[in-house]
């Protein structure tokens, strides 16, 4: 194929330009199509009775009264649903030793977290279904709950799954070099800290939900899905409901935020599909906000004890860490709940040229909501541990944290290489990024301001992070372990009779601008104005097969497939044009919707003329010309398990030592996500990600009682960042294109969430340091800040 220069230097390329999203018009006029907007003929509504206990044996459930309640069509217990599906188990073969128990959509004999569905009621309205739920009498024997991961492995702990003999789900040890010897060497300062990362969750503004419809005449199940991976969901429904894959159609229209929350298997959604099949009519289930907090996957929940060793000259000699993470009573299906711990082990210290590294991870069961992959899986933990220790070590040896980073970050000309944990790295720019960061934030001036402010009793802190982000995963992420999750994506480009370009892709849109970047790539590479491109995503019946949008893979993998498809269609169209114009394809180009002379740019014919000739007047073509005005290409990452990006970020905070409040004054992010397709969309991904990261660092926590009762299940009690307390965020870029594709794009969606918590942690501790206090627990709430100060 033609080389990259030809593609990116084309006169009508849109790659690299801040094109506004075409989808915005619809959403701004209230014409979005979210799942709850659907109202199908004969549609009925589901509500669930959920376990009030974290751990309870189900003795009996009396649904007699509910069955007779107004509007009720059906009441299903766990056993009723279990008879219609096969159970699922959240393990993968490449996560050696990972175990989990079979899980059904509704609890059958034992409920294992507060909020686990017990009974499903289907009625003519949601209100009637909820009324009937109130009439159900569940006789439950409360069992002792395992909530604290730090005691879950003790021999006297109750067991969540008796058959396993312990509450351990998985463990892994990574060892490189010899940490003990390195730490024992003369002149090495060793700093140890214990980090606690609370549970938080995604809080998508559109809650989880689905409409499932079943047509018995064609044995067709259609799921309208608020999620990220339609083809994955198609396989799961097919497998567990016993339907041929081709009879399951999954449609994802507008999705009101996902962030990894809506990519898992939720019992209430599977039950909606089961009910639709049993009732032979559409069933809608929309989680209310309390159900969202109780049953959307939670994230993080790690306790990490870690040490760093550094010489007096500032050479980091190694990191030694132990991560203990609680994942709820099951490993989530199908992606598993061991991936986050695995990523923590893979990523800690990955920006730095470490010789010695030891990391142990243990994943334990507990009676809380399941923990699984949420935006920036593992990254906030890995970055906060490594860079938190690094800045603490800097304080211990009296070295500035920027100088300490520059001394230890991998050199920009040292790739390809591996991290101490064995990750293959290429095309990174840590040194450039930290240099650019300190320039745009005016680091030296901030330090001067900080010293001045301290004299006035004002405690400001500056915290940094150097980070990597896992993007564009290859089949080594899930597929290799047996997960029904495509690592490749497909794209189709089709010229219609009017000269417009229709494209379809297996990546999906949840607001990132997926559809916009597909249009940008296709328009420029093929050669039409962007307003002549129409994009289809999110329908298993109408798009090529592929993975969807997650793990910051949409632009890098789906974008490359789109580029290849558009380029292939261009070649096909020029072949036809050459025949029609009696010249060679090489002498022609497509620009702004016209076939032009490649040398002069003079118009030879419009694409509409060409297409109408092919479609309507094939008689004008030689009989041996068989034009194809549609092209499909697929792409996957080879040679690398992941395509890493890097970045550097900084937070400037002020800590009120009287109240414990942390005010974020400003935030800076330098991101290298390879080739930037749309700088506006990338900047907004970074900003939105940073704010979610700030949320995890300062505000957000799913608070459980010792008995496993979730205490904050309203938006008033679970605090997310609001506009008033968020800073403006300065974003800058370095572009080191990935060599794994022509497009050269890496992902950008998770960097902010992965890096911001470390920068905030470091900034707060920088502010507290003159007071002899420090805090290693997230979120860093006012109460925790005050406690740290009183202990300091």
């Amino acid at each position, binding site marked *: 194929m033609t080389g990259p220069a030809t593609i990116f230097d084309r006169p009508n390329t849109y790659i690299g330009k801040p094109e*506004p*999203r075409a*989808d*915005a*018009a*619809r*959403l*701004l*006029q*209230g*014409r*979005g199509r*979210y799942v*709850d*907007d659907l*109202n199908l003929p004969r549609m009925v509504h589901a509500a669930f009775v959920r376990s009030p206990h974290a751990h309870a044996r189900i003795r009996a459930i009396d649904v007699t009264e509910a069955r007779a309640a*107004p509007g009720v069509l059906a009441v299903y217990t766990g056993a009723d649903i279990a008879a219609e599906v096969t159970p699922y188990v959240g393990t993968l073969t490449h996560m050696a030793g990972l175990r989990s128990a079979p899980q059904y959509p509704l609890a059958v004999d034992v409920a294992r977290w507060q909020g686990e569905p017990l009974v499903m009621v289907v009625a003519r309205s949601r*209100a009637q279904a909820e*009324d009937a739920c109130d009439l159900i009498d569940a006789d439950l024997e409360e069992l002792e709950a395992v909530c604290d991961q730090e005691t879950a492995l003790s021999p006297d702990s109750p067991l969540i799954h008796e058959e396993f003999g312990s509450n351990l789900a998985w463990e892994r040890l990574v060892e490189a070099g010899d940490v003990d010897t390195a730490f024992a060497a003369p002149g090495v300062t060793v700093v140890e800290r214990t980090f606690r990362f609370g549970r938080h969750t*995604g*809080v*998508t*503004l*559109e*809650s989880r939900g689905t409409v499932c419809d079943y047509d018995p005449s064609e044995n067709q199940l259609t799921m309208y899905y608020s999620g990220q991976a339609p083809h994955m969901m198609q396989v799961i429904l097919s497998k567990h409901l016993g339907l041929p894959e081709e009879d399951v159609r999954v449609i994802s229209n*507008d*999705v*009101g*935020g*996902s*962030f990894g929350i809506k990519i898992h298997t939720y019992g209430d959604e599977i039950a909606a599909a089961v009910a639709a099949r049993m009732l032979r009519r559409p069933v809608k289930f929309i989680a*209310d*906000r309390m159900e969202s907090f109780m049953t959307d996957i939670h994230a993080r929940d790690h306790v990490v004890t870690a040490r760093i060793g550094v010489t007096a000259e500032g050479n980091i000699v190694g990191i030694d860490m132990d991560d203990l993470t609680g994942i709820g009573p099951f490993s989530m299906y199908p992606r598993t709940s061991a991936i986050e711990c695995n990523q923590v082990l893979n990523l800690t210290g990955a920006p730095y040229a470490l010789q010695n590294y030891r990391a142990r991870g243990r994943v334990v069961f507990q009676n809380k909501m399941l923990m699984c992959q949420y935006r920036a899986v593992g990254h906030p933990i890995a970055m906060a541990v490594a860079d938190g220790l690094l800045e603490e070590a800097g304080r211990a040896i009296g070295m500035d944290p920027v100088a300490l980073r520059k001394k230890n970050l991998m050199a920009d000309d040292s790739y390809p290489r591996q991290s101490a944990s064995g990750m293959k790295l290429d095309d990174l720019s840590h040194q450039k990024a930290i240099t650019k960061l300190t320039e745009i934030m005016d680091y030296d001036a901030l330090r001067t301001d900080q010293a001045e402010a301290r004299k006035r009793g004002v405690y400001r802190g500056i915290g940094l992070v150097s980070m990597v982000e896992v993007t564009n995963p290859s089949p080594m992420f899930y597929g290799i372990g047996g997960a029904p999750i495509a690592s490749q994506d497909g794209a189709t480009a089709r010229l219609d009779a009017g000269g417009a370009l229709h494209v379809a892709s297996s990546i999906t849109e*949840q*607001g*990132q*601008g997926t559809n916009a970047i597909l249009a940008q790539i296709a328009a420029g590479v093929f050669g039409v104005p962007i307003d002549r491109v129409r994009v289809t995503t999110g329908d298993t019946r109408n798009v090529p097969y592929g993975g969807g949008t997650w793990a910051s893979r949409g632009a890098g993998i789906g974008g490359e497939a789109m580029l290849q498809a558009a380029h292939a269609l261009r070649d096909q169209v020029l072949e036809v044009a050459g025949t029609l114009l009696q010249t060679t394809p090489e002498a022609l180009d497509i620009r702004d919707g016209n076939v032009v002379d490649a040398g002069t740019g003079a118009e030879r014919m419009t694409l509409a003329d060409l297409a109408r000739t092919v479609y309507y007047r094939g008689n004008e073509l030689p009989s041996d010309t068989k034009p194809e005005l549609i092209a499909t290409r697929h792409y996957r990452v080879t040679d690398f398990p992941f395509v890493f990006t890097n970045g550097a970020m900084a937070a400037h905070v002020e800590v009120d030592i009287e109240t414990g409040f942390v005010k974020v004054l400003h935030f800076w992010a330098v991101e290298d996500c390879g080739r930037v397709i749309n700088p*506006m*969309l990338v900047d*907004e991904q970074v*900003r*939105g*990600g*940073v*704010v*979610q990261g700030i949320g995890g660092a300062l505000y957000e926590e799913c608070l459980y009682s010792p008995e496993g009762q979730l205490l904050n299940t*309203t*938006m*008033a009690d679970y605090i*997310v*960042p*609001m*506009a*008033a307390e*968020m800073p*403006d*965020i300065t974003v800058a870029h370095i572009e080191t294109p990935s060599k794994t594709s022509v497009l050269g794009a890496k992902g950008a969606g998770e960097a*902010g969430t992965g890096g911001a918590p470390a920068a905030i942690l470091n900034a707060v501790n920088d502010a507290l340091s003159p007071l002899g206090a420090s805090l290693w627990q997230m979120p860093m709430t006012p109460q925790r800040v005050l406690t740290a100060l009183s202990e300091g």
Partner: protein
Amino acid sequence: MTRDARITLTVNGEEISAVVAVRTNLVDFLRHDVGLTGSHVGCEHGVCGACTLELNGKAVRGCLTLAVQADGGTVTTVEGLADSGRSDALRAAFTRRNALQCGFCTPGMLASALSYIERGGSDDRQAIRDHISGNYCRCTGYQSVVDAISDVIREGDGA
């Protein structure tokens, strides 16, 4: 059990008469009975702001207002703001600044922003941030929303 009541109200300029259960809130009535699905439900307890719409000239939470409370009133939803052109400048600015991603908070955000702009709110960034702090956005991080609102105020001032 629930009682029903007949209500008559003007929605986006159209008179609507319907029988509703008295427990039905205004946003559910608009979404499920009238078919105006532009107003969204995020929390159902008045915190997230996704259901913010205009009732009798004031921005209200559609989830904290019962449909029967709108009897005899005038309601404008995000669809009405677009059809009448009142949200033209804001929509253009939101598009230009990419002040929306998933779009779920957007109808409420527009209603809040419009009430601020139309009553002469200043383009001071912190004042804008304070005003929209009743509207959760989980995607943008808010900066682009502030930019867009600020743009509209400045354009309106002839700046």
